[in-house]
């Protein structure tokens, strides 16, 4: 006996087996009881449900968040749309029902049948969407004939509605059905095919905020597919509202001004980088994308010579023309290639390497210093400055001013622009840099490319004393109850590489361009608001020697204007480009001027500032 215990004690597992067996029996007992409950107690109820196959699933779509401008004006909202669905399983004689339905929907029965057949892969109890957004009269007719149309159901869904059809389309963007690639990418785990997703603009960039989460309903339907009772509901979580930095009024005004031409206009708040307007012209109507765009309409948009689908404000790359002289001037001053007293003689051209590099003013400017060169846009002055700097020093300054790199605004396919340097050219073309090219680059021609947004931000930085802000399009995100989920903070992207003293010289130069007697932008002058700005004319083809030939419209130079106002304490910085507009002062300048007027005359300054809660950054000089 004693021996037995000794042997058993170290691995005394045996008695525990009994405990395990009892646990197993208890657990199986639970399973058995559940089985008896389901099959015997509830059996008949479940049998009935299975015979009808009457449990249906309905997705409850979340309302998509609104898109609002900075003052809360609605840019995008949702409206109810009545969609006709058809459930083959509930229809009985599907052919007859579809025939009758085709009368109401005014689409051929074959087309409807094709849609039903097309989705045959799905089980027969799944509703097929036949027609979206029927009118209320059709709805009334359908509801009245409901009994004769088994399997037909009308679902109320929310449809995106862009209130100002043609306004801010490039900023707001549009929705579309999720594509196969987007589904496969795994970036949108909650989405199924057929769901709408932001495809462009803010709708796309902030899709995760706007979308919300779908809810669902399990319902029991009768033999005609009508809902008899709701078994279970999970509410949808509505999408968040997105408040943009856009000022709808300014945006709309700029769009009117650019109507009929190809071009772009950008307005930013120099104190924080808020984008007040981002216009690309011509525009399109995002509402036409909501239920899938018709192929002819799409064709018309893609083949339009002015490329309406392109967001020229951030995707358009244009030679900056004379607006680039701002960069050349500040680089020259800071590198001591010139100072405020340096003067060059302009005789209408600079002879270099056996060639004449012309100034736009054939008779020449005479002796000009940097302020006058900026005001009167003297090319020869900047040729000489560029020569002293060399292309690589100039490129360094241009890049430090935020050119040649994406601004990080977060919208679709932002372009980088291009700032050429000698190593870039060697790499790109395999040939060394020619000094003559430096001359072209100094006045913003040649390889230089910038986007309107980049130039607006440059003007803002010059105006606010040298701080380069990251552009913001999103101000904050709120839940439908108004709780703030995300609040954008303005962010410095860098500083202009220039001393306050030298910056002031540049500021004075471009102030004189608008307000001076011989400034190139005199037409932009306003009596009550001081604007500081720079015109630009960027060559599409090389400048011709004789200017009186006829130039076909698509080869005419692009017109630029960049400015900020009021000059002393800027509240707005603007860049405008008009494709093939020829002269900055006549084509682009007045648009910028009108934008300034609209924005600064709209509300008394104090009120505007109080609303924004931001202070204008004073120059650090």
């Amino acid at each position: 006996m004693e021996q037995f215990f000794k042997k058993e004690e170290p691995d005394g597992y045996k008695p525990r087996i009994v405990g395990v067996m009892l646990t197993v029996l208890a657990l199986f007992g639970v399973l058995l009881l559940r089985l008896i409950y389901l099959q015997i107690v509830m059996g008949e109820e479940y049998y009935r449900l299975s015979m009808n196959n009457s449990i249906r699933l309905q997705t409850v779509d979340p309302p998509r968040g609104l898109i609002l401008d900075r003052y809360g004006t609605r840019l995008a909202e949702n409206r109810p749309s009545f969609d006709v669905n058809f459930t083959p399983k509930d229809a009985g004689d599907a052919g007859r029902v579809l025939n009758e339905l085709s009368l109401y929907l005014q689409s051929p029965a074959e087309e409807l049948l094709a849609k039903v057949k097309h989705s045959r892969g799905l089980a027969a109890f799944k509703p097929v969407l036949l027609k979206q957004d029927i009118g209320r009269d059709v709805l009334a007719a359908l509801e009245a004939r409901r009994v004769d149309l088994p399997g037909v159901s009308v679902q109320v869904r929310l449809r995106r509605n862009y209130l100002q059809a043609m306004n801010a389309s490039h900023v707001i963007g549009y929705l579309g059905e999720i594509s196969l690639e987007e589904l496969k990418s795994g970036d949108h785990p909650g989405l199924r095919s057929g769901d709408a997703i932001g495809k462009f603009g803010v709708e796309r960039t902030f899709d995760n905020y706007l979308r919300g989460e779908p809810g669902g309903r399990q319902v029991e339907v009768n033999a005609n597919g009508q809902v008899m009772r709701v078994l279970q509901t999970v509410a949808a979580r509505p999408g968040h509202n997105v408040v943009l930095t856009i000022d709808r009024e300014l945006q709309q005004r700029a769009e009117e001004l650019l109507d009929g031409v190809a071009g772009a206009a950008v307005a930013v708040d120099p104190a924080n980088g808020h984008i007040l307007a981002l216009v690309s012209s011509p525009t399109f109507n995002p509402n036409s994308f909501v239920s899938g765009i018709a192929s002819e309409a799409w064709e018309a948009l893609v083949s339009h010579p002015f490329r309406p689908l392109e967001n020229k404000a951030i995707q358009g790359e244009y030679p900056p023309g004379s607006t680039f002289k701002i960069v050349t001037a500040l680089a020259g001053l800071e590198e001591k290639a010139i100072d405020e007293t340096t003067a060059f003689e302009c005789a209408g051209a600079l002879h270099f390497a056996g060639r004449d590099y012309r100034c736009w003013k054939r008779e020449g400017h005479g002796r000009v210093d940097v302020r006058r060169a900026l005001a009167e846009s003297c090319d020869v002055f900047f040729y000489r400055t560029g020569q002293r700097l060399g292309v690589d020093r100039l490129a360094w300054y241009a890049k430090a001013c935020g050119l040649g790199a994406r601004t990080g605004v977060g919208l679709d396919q932002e372009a980088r622009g291009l700032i050429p340097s000698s190593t870039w050219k060697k790499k790109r073309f395999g040939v060394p840099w020619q000094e003559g090219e430096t001359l072209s680059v100094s006045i913003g021609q040649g390889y230089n490319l910038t986007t309107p947004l980049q130039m607006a931000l440059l003007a803002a930085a010059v105006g606010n004393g040298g701080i380069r802000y990251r552009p913001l399009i999103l101000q904050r995100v709120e839940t439908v109850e108004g709780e703030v989920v995300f609040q954008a903070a303005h962010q410095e992207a860098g500083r202009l590489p220039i001393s306050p003293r030298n910056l002031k010289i540049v500021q004075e130069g471009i102030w004189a361009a608008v307000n001076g007697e011989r400034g190139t932008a005199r037409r932009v002058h306003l009596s009550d608001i001081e604007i500081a700005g720079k015109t630009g004319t960027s060559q599409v083809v090389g400048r011709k020697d004789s200017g009186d030939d006829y130039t076909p419209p698509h080869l005419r130079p692009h017109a630029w204007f960049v400015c900020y106002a009021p000059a002393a304490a800027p509240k707005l910085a603007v860049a405008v480009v008009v494709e093939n507009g020829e002269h900055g002062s006549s084509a682009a300048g007045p648009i910028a001027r009108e934008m300034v007027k609209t924005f600064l005359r709209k509300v008394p300054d104090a009120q505007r500032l109080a609303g924004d809660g931001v202070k204008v950054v004073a120059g650090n000089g």
Partner: protein
Amino acid sequence: MIDRRLIHNFDWGLLMVVMLLGAVGLTTVYSAVTADPPPAAQKVLFYKQMIWFTLGFIVMTASFSFSYRVLDRWAHPIYVVCVLLLLGVVVFGKLAGGSRRWLVLGPVHLQPSELIKIAMVLVLAKYFSKGSDPRGFNLRELIRPMLMTGLPFALIVIQPDLGTAGLVALIAVTMALFVKVERRALTLLVTSAGALVPLVWSLLKDYQKQRILTFLNPDQDPLGAGYHIIQSKIAIGSGMISGKGYLQGTQNALSFLPEEHTDFIFSVLAEEWGAVGSIGVLLLLLVLILWGLNIAHRCRDPFGNILAIGITALLGWQVMINVGMTMGLMPVVGVPLPLISYGGSSTLTVAICIGLLMNISMRRFLVE
């Protein structure tokens, strides 16, 4: 040379229970795959399952033809290989339905998370069989088994396959409790685990929390898991007492059931055979589990004893989780029903389990 006593001691009863369950499984898989349109393509799955059963029979025979005691020596290498395969899944695994569970080796699609269950039972049995103080294993002694469980657990969680990960943890906990854990260590572990939950929870991202909540409460996702559960309950309940008859299940035929040949096979069975059939099969599964426990009970060798407990826990928990899930008692997870569900890796795993149980059973009197 085969010892005559081995044949004499062979567990014919266990073989019979297994063959019965296997037959039920094959017929149900046939019903599940043929009811689903289009039948021609689906029928292939039935023939595939016949092949798996044949292979399973061979694997089972192989698993009892050597003495299980050599596994004491082989436990660690087997474990290492399985963990490497799991790592392979993480790196090279085939992405299907949002998770990586499969390793594609030529024509073979391997699911290492199935194999690791056995490997883990082996290493834990080896470790626990070395014995402890009569008061049970203390905290320090438990560190190794916890690491041995934690590694595959973590690798399966990131696939992600929360069901199998949970199963792995359940098996390990069952074995540890069986060999006895020191009272102090037990209290400490339970309380620290309880304290860890809110901490881990606060570190998770919102979508991860949502996923876990849906996992625990499928009703929150009425279009996905919740829908499957209600359809499965309708299938089972509508079988009533005598069932709708073989191949007559309407829930099954109209594809209301998801994964009707794998995870939800029990619903097909219950719909077609009613309470008579489903309770019968459930009792047969109960007999299998109790049989396994009896084998553990009669084994004199600690390693064999604990090994048998671990294997039985593996089979038992799978039955509980799978059947519980189809009836809405458990969250919806991809855990197959042993011997009934369609599936290659899972059939072979179960075959190894049964073979090892037979192995322990027939060598219970042989003390080397």
